[in-house]
């Protein structure tokens, strides 16, 4: 926070030293003389401001004549640019990327010039044509006078007395009682905004025998077709390829490892099995693609380190050991989808996920 302009003229008159954060000295300081007229209506003379006449000649008349021309030029430019905008609107077609960009350039530029012309014209007008003045206005105190406050208190007390609000508590209390349900109604009527969560966050559409389809082509896949180690592909459940609600929970990543790389320890949560080598097929493992942090798709996979990375908040999961968390805010491993192959040799789910996918929630347990 530098503040002092070091005004260090080596010789001669020292230039005015001005503190940044304070206005420059103003050439014309109009005195706040007493009202010298204009008190047209009689009432309320106490709030009349000091009447200072604004001068109606520019500070530097010769200068001002030039400024006048510049202002007129700016306004004229604004007029032309404004017409240009309308012309560009009428004349330039849209409907393709190139034509849209052309139109955007012409419209935006003409609009900008029109607005700049108005802005510059107005500001030069103020600064060069209007005489520089500074006026002083007295503040009136915010606090009401003691007399007004007392009068207010009296009125309030009188009104309260007249209303019998204090004397007749039964009226007061029933009134308050009456407002209670009405106040609650705006909240109550929001109930039908959505269904109760129920157990829907615990399940996905994966079910025993449901085929894994490759995202994009929507084709089933056999272990033999997914043979290149180090690859990661995105999988969607058969029958739900266009169902965003289903996919938001059921999206899966499929990773192929070299023999011996994959080493998922058998893990349980209570009595539920949540991770095991038995759910892999041919060194292929399927994990939920929905990050356990706040639900972004974990879309990045680094082959050499076997790290799965969520691009949103950089939660990092170790793919070889059951997608355990090695960095970032995700609190749990990515759930593992039990895999097997069906009679045609295609990869299918052995069951649904055995634990809720995606972000934590209160009822998750």
């Amino acid at each position: 926070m530098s503040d002092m302009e070091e005004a260090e003229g080596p010789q001669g008159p020292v230039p005015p030293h001005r503190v940044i954060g304070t206005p420059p000295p103003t050439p014309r300081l109009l005195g706040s003389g007493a009202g010298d007229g204009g008190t047209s209506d009689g009432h309320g003379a106490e709030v009349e401001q000091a009447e200072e006449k604004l001068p109606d000649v520019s500070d530097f008349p010769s200068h001002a004549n030039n400024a006048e021309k510049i202002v007129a030029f700016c306004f004229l430019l604004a007029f032309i640019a404004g017409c240009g905008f309308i012309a560009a609107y009428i004349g330039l077609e849209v409907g393709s990327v190139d034509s849209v960009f052309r139109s955007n350039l012409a419209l935006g530029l003409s609009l900008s010039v029109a607005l700049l012309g108005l802005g510059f014209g107005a500001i030069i007008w103020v600064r060069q044509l209007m005489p520089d003045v500074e006026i002083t206005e007295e503040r009136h105190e915010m606090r009401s006078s003691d007399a007004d406050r007392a009068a207010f208190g009296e009125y309030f007390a009188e009104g309260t007395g007249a209303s019998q609000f204090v004397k007749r508590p039964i009226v007061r209390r029933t009134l308050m009682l009456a407002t209670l349900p009405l106040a609650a109604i705006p909240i109550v009527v929001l109930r039908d905004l959505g269904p109760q969560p129920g157990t829907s966050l615990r399940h996905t559409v994966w079910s025993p025998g449901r085929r894994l389809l490759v995202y994009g082509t929507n084709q089933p896949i056999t272990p033999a077709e997914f043979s290149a180690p180090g690859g990661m592909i995105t999988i969607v459940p058969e029958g739900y390829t266009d169902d965003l609600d289903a996919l938001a929970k059921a999206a899966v990543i499929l990773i192929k490892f070299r023999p011996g790389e994959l080493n998922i320890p058998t893990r349980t949560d209570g009595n539920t099995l949540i991770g095991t080598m038995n759910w892999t097929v041919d060194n292929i493992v399927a994990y939920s693609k929905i990050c356990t942090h706040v639900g972004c798709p974990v879309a990045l996979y680094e082959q050499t380190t076997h790290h799965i990375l969520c691009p949103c908040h950089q939660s990092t999961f170790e793919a070889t050991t059951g997608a355990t968390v090695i960095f970032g805010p995700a609190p749990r491993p990515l759930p593992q989808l039990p895999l097997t192959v069906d009679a045609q040799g295609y990869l299918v789910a052995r069951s649904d996920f055995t634990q809720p996918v995606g972000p934590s929630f209160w009822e998750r347990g």
Partner: protein
Amino acid sequence: MSDDLNVPKALSGTGSWLDDRFHGARGLRVFMRKVFPDHWSFMLGEIALWSFVILLLTGTFLAFFFVPSSAPVVYHGSYVKLDGISMSQAYASTLNISFEVRAGLLMRQIHHWAADLFMAALTIHMLRVFFTGAYRKPREVNWLIGIALFSLGLIEGLFGYSLPDDQLSGAGLRIFEGVLQGIPIVGTYLAFFLFGGTFPGGSIIPRMYIIHVLLIPGLLLALITAHLFIMVHQKHTQMPGLGRTEKNVVGQPFFPYFMAKGGAWFFFIFAALALVATFAQINPIWLYGPYTPVAISSASQPDFYMGILEGSLRMMPAWEWSFLGHTISFSVLIPFIVPLTVVLGGAALWPFFERWATGDKSYHNVNDRPRNAPIRTATGMAAVTFYGVLWAEGANDVIADKLQIPLYTVTWIARVLIFVGPAIAFYVTRRTCIGLQRKDKELLEHGLETGIIRQLPNGEFIEVHRPLTEEERAPLEAKKVPALMPGPGSEDENGVPAPQAHGALGLPRAIANRAFAETVVIETNGHGNGHGNGDGPADEHAAVGAGHAEFPGGDGGSGDGPGGESGDPD
């Protein structure tokens, strides 16, 4: 002067007609001469105001064409790369606005840039108000309204950029849903009610739409109106200077000066937004593709004002508690709640804390220079640092990429800086403020270095100092220092304990009070300011003592400018 100016009949006739019915002349006459202090920092709030006006204008245009629906359609518009793709009507209509509606793209881009400018201007305006102490009595309510405006602006922006239902904003919405879901006890219900079921569902787009175009803008408009009316009613604050007192306001009249300046400022802001909208592409949703929960683009970043939330989500370690069949995910909850509570909640409470700590119940219409309130300025800078670390961490992947630092290292640096940074900022700022006060003291006591070296007859060289002019002295002398309160246990001469020392909060209050009362005392020969230095504990620097002015201090220790007495130090 203006006797020769004849008001045209059309104007005076209309004026009379209106005044016969509304009695407007009296009020408007006063308003025309309403004084607007001239200071660049007073234009910051105006940027936010004008951005809001531009948002309303462009937003109305966009609403004529936008279809707030998640219903799927197959796209056959002029953006051929997405031809035949299934997408929501919201996304398709946004493509339509961009490629088929003339000036649609321009309006979209101005709207988006204006939203960013609105939030940026609001932020900087609030910083200005904070650092100059303009939130003090009687303006606390307007300060709170400002914080409400900022909070509403966050939600308004989030919902606004989520409406097009593109891949990027959909990911943001997913994060929002994930965070909602993580709130203890009611989280899943909140998420299900807002989204009408599981994510993404078909309800969120129309619901966000009505909130974005009606509910929040209505609230913003009402609050902005209240903000402005309160400002007009209480009158502006002003920066310290010659002739500026707590009881007046110095500046230029509304008509014609401020009217023209404000109008010009509107045109400049609109022009700036039109220029960036012309040359700087923002939110090219056609490149992102329609939303699907299956995919995401890397280096996804929200708009800048959400960066603090994004950063705190990225910074947080994986903390989660499971107990009795329930889960609390602190790795979501803390980032969601703590940063905004610290920054906005802290800002909301600050005026009341300062009032409590300083015991200052007087009106403040002349702003402080930031250096003259070291604790406030240091606290503000600590908050800025806190915000800044979180904000930068929101782009940790970009930082790691550009600076070639490992990603996790960036996050670890941020995890340390979030605690250390504000502390350093507080210390450095406080010392800087004291240093700058010393500089002021030197200027006042010894005048200004002229750069002229003179040799005295005895051979000694001295630099000639020139005393400050009255105009130069005024802002420096406007310093006000909170009065020292009696500490806990202190009694007056009758043995009555000091009222401020009562209760459990007596000691913390006394400590806070001493911190606030720290100042560099200026010794001017009998000048209005800074009398007495008796009760300050002797510091290592004799000049840094606490306080002066008896408590309760009303206007602190200021003499409101030098008045008639202009003591010449030499």
